[in-house]
């Protein structure tokens, strides 16, 4: 995966280096397109990293629930409180991030 990303980024860099060879009348457009391509690639990369994190976190939760189920153990009040603290904290952080991004 990272190899492919690196190759695409190198390709973009190589294309950018060739910009001076583009005829004057098309140079601005070519630069604009390359800039857009770089931004789109960066946005996709952020989503991929977050997906990897999410998969790891959900796998952690699953392991914990599997252990609980294997032991035939009920959820304790303390465990429940900890889960809700996580939800409230994440919800507050999410809403703050949303407001800061001007998307609230």
């Amino acid at each position, binding site marked *: *995966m990272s190899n*492919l*990303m690196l190759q*695409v980024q190198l390709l973009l860099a190589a294309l950018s280096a060739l910009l001076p060879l583009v005829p004057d009348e098309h140079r601005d*457009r070519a630069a*604009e*397109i390359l800039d*857009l*391509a770089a*931004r*789109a*690639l*960066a*946005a*996709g*990369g*952020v*989503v*991929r990293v*977050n*997906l*990897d*994190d*999410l*998969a790891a*976190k*959900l*796998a952690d*939760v*699953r392991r*914990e*629930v*599997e252990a*609980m*189920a294997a032991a*035939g153990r*009920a*959820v*304790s*009040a303390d*465990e*429940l409180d900890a*889960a*809700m603290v*996580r*939800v409230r*904290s*994440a*919800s507050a*952080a*999410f*809403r703050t*991030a*949303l407001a*800061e*991004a*001007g*998307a*609230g």
Partner: protein
Amino acid sequence: MRHPLRVLALALMLSATPACASLQWPGAAIENPIDAARTVDQRAYALLHAYGAILEEAADIVRDPATPLTLKRALGQAERVATPTVETLQIAVTAYIRASETPDDRIAAANTLNAAIAAAEAPVAELQALVRARRS
């Protein structure tokens, strides 16, 4: 910009490139912790923690300046729908854990909890789908 459609197509293709490159085939997919639960309180616990994890990742996506505003707004809308259902779930699971030992109370609390889980699952799944939207 003389060819906006071509530029848009290029942008979409490149946005999808990292996600396509990291595509995992069945067997290595994102796990669902709720499937591992055997009791109703374990299901509720798994759903609460999974929602916390999804929100944490959604916050990271929103913080990134490269994320399109439309995606940020969609995530915000999905969170506003999901969080109240999760809060209701928390109330129901607390009541279930504290329910007296009489069978009637226990059954009533379990029914309420099952309904709260059912009500929360779809909005939580929708938020998760948005977080994963760029993957495919």
